């Protein structure tokens, strides 16, 4: 008898509290989703070196984005173009993704308007180890990619090398001590995705941005 009572008790408790959490979740999910979109938009603006005020509301960010960024579809991936105040195309950005140590890593890489130089790297989502792999978010690590020359190669099959040794070598970026797997993953995903973008160089140059609707 007490066995049935116990089961019934847990059922009722679980039902009430699961109802509470899913109710709150449903009520707030739109807002959470908007915050998430704004966060990614801010990162896209940052990698395209488009300034935005530090205390911008989601609407402000949205406005700046629609004025300065356009997106186009390539074969598989999406590509973004960042325009300056006068409407001149300044940079391209494209999403990169790969497998990290604990889960997938996603981010953006920005290239200059000639598609020959890296202008910035940013990571939008990852679940790497805090204090180790998660340091890919830190500015010193990301800034190392800025200005790498894509007309040169770090090795026959790589544009960029992320490693601890070979200081001063071509297109080499310092890896993160204690986060070898994360560093290797970042190297792999950036190289693969740059390769794919550069192979579509002509298509990208041929995009008629003026005809595309605003983002």
């Amino acid at each position, binding site marked *: 008898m007490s066995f049935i009572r116990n089961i019934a*008790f*847990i059922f009722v408790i679980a039902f009430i509290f699961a109802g509470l959490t899913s109710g709150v979740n449903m009520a707030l999910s739109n807002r*959470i989703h908007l*915050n998430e979109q704004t966060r990614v938009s801010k990162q896209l603006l940052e990698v395209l070196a488009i300034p935005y005020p530090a205390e911008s509301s989601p609407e402000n960010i949205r406005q700046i984005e629609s004025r300065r960024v356009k997106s186009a579809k390539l074969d598989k991936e999406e590509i973004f173009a960042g325009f300056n105040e006068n409407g001149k195309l300044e940079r391209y950005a494209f999403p990169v993704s790969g497998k990290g140590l604990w889960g997938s890593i996603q981010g953006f890489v920005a290239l200059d308007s000639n598609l020959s130089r890296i202008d910035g790297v940013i990571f939008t989502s990852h679940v790497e180890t805090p204090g180790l792999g998660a340091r890919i978010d830190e500015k010193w690590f990301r800034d190392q990619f800025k200005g790498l020359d894509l007309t040169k190669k770090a090795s026959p099959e790589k544009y960029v090398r992320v490693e601890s040794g070979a200081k001063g070598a071509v297109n080499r970026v310092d890896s993160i001590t204690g986060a070898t797997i994360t560093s290797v993953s970042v190297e792999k995903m950036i190289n693969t995705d740059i390769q794919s973008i550069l192979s579509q160089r002509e298509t990208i140059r041929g995009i008629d941005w003026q005809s595309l609707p605003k983002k």
Partner: protein
Amino acid sequence: MAVSSKKIALDGIWYNNPIFRQVLGICSTLAVTNLVTNTAVMCLGLIYTNAVSCFTVSALRTITPFRLRIISSTLIIAAYVIVLHNFLMAYLPEISAQLGPYVGLIITNCIVLGRVEAFSIQNKPIPALIDGVSSAVGYSMVLLLIAVIREGLGFGSVAGISLPFEFTKWTIMVMAPGAFFMLAIVVWIARWWGMRTEEAQKTSK
């Protein structure tokens, strides 16, 4: 056995302070105390979780089967923490991102389960609520003290506002070891102070 509300509150805040008397909940003490703002949000989160969890567990104590008390307490705590986590993501997204996994880890914060198991399960809802709030406040005081010192020495600011003078920043203070040092020093001073007053009381008797 009716204990006065005042005694329950003082116990939680000082005489039986979760951090330097029971040494509970030090995981988050070590993790979030390098910035005062994050610490304050974490403390408010814990005060809320502890208060509502203690109250709910106590309200359900007469119908909770004895063998199922831990599982139902954990379920209740987890539900309240998920609610908190959703609110932070919706209204304070930046702080939520910085706190990362730590909000979720309030579920396993030793203070919450400790108070629920040690007090709420045997006491009426109102004393349980007072106990929950006061031990969380006791925890928050220590956390904020450590955070002010760590952020002050490590970043040269308090809650993001720069201190009015220049000095060499103690980088170690914002890293994990800084928390160990500060926690040890705070516990040491508090225990020394506590011991002194206890001895004074003994000799006066």
